[in-house]
């Protein structure tokens, strides 16, 4: 097949700015995803690695915008755009072709990064469909960033427009990543526990807003009257989309509690039964031993000490205690989570009651770490424990 009959997009993909910026982005993704970035300190599961992919858009998005701006400014500087303007397909079509090539390369870089991060992560901690909204949002964010790059380069014809739009977008994304900001699209500070997933409502509407802004920019290119009006069109569309999103989700957090599985997996040790999500952790055995040891200490003072423990997020039956099981393998646990599961949560928020609760938790952690039966303070502290337990159980008067 002669070279001249290749599809225009294929030619665009293999030449100039799309090729150079795209291969740089894919190369960076290979190095970052394959060697440098890791999710070692995070919990097993799909959500944290996928969230890291979204966080990576903090650098990928601005670079995609810069690449798109570079492509358009090169087209303008070389006169290709003027030439295209004299053909029936017009300028908009020429810009869209380059834009599509840039977006394809940058999406490929995102895909490579996502695949490498997933391959190198521990995915044993569970998966829910809502987690797929994270990479979807990442892809839409990258495409929206390319739209911003194209829009800026159309307005500002300068060879420094590309690096300027990259750094400006980075600043915008970084400044809006604050948890208090309603317009944020990345959630870098979030760690997903086993019972959490991305908020499907918030993320899907943010994704819709990003997609809408991109589509508006895409169609806005064809507006022939004036570039200023086209830009106004884009900004109005983006503002409309984001205001709809924020209006719908005024106070929603980007995480939501997952729907509990049909069946929990339960384990037993002596008197204690622990039911977890169907993805057991390697630290499960230690958690169970700590619960058993603490239960034996507390049972000496409290007949109503719970024996059934359900991991947070599961539907727990009456009289069973909620337990936030530590799933980090590499951290040394002092047993606070177990003590908090065993001591009844006070219903009264008075200072004396919450202080008694804290004292009991600390006492149980210390007492259970000693050898059973060698507790010198056991006899003397019986009244102390019973008094605080009744204070914690009592309702506010």
């Amino acid at each position, binding site marked *: 097949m002669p070279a001249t009959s290749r599809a225009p997009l294929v030619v665009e993909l293999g030449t100039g700015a799309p090729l*150079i910026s795209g291969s740089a982005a894919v190369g960076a993704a290979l190095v970052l995803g394959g*060697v440098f*970035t890791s999710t070692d300190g*995070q919990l097993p599961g799909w959500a944290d690695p996928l969230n890291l992919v979204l*966080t990576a858009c903090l*650098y990928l998005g601005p670079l995609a915008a810069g690449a798109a701006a570079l492509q358009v400014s090169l087209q303008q500087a070389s006169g290709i755009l003027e030439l295209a303007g004299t053909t029936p397909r017009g300028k908009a079509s020429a810009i869209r072709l380059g834009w599509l090539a840039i977006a394809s390369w940058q999406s490929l870089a995102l895909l490579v990064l996502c695949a490498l991060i997933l391959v190198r992560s521990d995915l044993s901690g569970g998966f829910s469909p809502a987690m797929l909204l994270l990479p979807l949002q990442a892809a839409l964010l990258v495409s929206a960033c390319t739209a911003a790059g194209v829009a800026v380069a159309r307005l500002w014809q300068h060879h420094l427009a590309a*690096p300027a739009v990259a750094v400006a977008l*980075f600043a915008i994304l970084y400044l809006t990543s604050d948890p208090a900001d309603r317009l944020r699209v990345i959630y*870098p500070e979030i760690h997903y526990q086993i019972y959490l997933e991305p908020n499907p409502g918030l993320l899907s509407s943010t994704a819709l807003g990003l997609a809408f802004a991109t589509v508006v920019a895409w169609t806005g290119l064809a507006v022939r009257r004036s570039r200023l009006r086209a830009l106004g069109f884009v900004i109005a569309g983006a503002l409309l989309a984001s205001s709809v999103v924020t209006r719908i989700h005024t106070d929603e957090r980007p995480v939501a509690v997952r729907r509990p599985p049909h069946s929990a997996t339960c384990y037993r040790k002596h008197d204690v039964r622990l039911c977890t999500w169907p993805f057991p952790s390697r630290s499960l055995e230690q958690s169970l031993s700590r619960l058993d040891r603490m239960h034996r200490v507390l049972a000496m003072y409290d007949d109503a000490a719970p024996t059934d423990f359900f991991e947070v997020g599961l539907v727990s039956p009456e009289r069973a205690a909620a337990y936030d099981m530590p799933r980090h393998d590499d951290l040394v646990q002092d047993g606070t989570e177990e003590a908090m599961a065993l001591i009844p949560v006070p219903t009264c928020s008075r200072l004396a009651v919450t202080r008694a609760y804290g004292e009991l938790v600390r006492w149980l952690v210390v007492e259970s770490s000693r050898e059973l039966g060698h507790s010198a303070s056991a006899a003397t502290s019986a009244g102390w424990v019973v008094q605080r337990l009744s204070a914690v159980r009592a309702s506010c008067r």
Partner: protein
Amino acid sequence: MRSSPDRWLPPHVSGWTLATTAAAVTTAAVAAAAPDVVGLPQIGAMDTVVAPVPALLAWVAALTATTAASEPCPEVFATVPRRAFAVNVARIVLTLAAFTVGAAAATGTRDLAVAGLSARTSMALCGEGLAVASVAGLRYGWLPMTAHLLAAATLGAANRPDLAGWAWIVSPEVGATQVVLSTLLFVIGMTAWTRRARTVLSQPA
């Protein structure tokens, strides 16, 4: 070469001198006057693990240096004598030096570390930019340095208590390895750039 009869500046004050001085003074002044306003993210880290001001200053310095490497007529430039060619290299080095001196002057004795960190990072970034520019042209010089800076500040500090080792260009501490690496990057970039400029066109059509 570029003088014109109605020139309002003396011939030894070029546009490059003015632009570099203005950029260096502005950036250093911002860095000195409002060090907390300029920020890079350190997502999730408790202690200060990134030095935003030197990193951004170095990025501006490296971008200015690669811009300073451009020649109005690359086709002619490939044929110029060695002495004229040295001016191009000197411009790059002097731009970086101007930013370092500017940072040192602006922060004064209070915090000389800013100048040192900025010099370390700007040498590395400039080397990367020139290396890519020698292959693809100066219009692509900003790509590797911006990508390196943003990726280091994002993925090197995201969701971790410390700074990743590979993200040293935004680190607030200097080690011997970093100095060797950034010098190496600068030397590689300059070598690639000089070879390219001496033999082929320094800028593609």
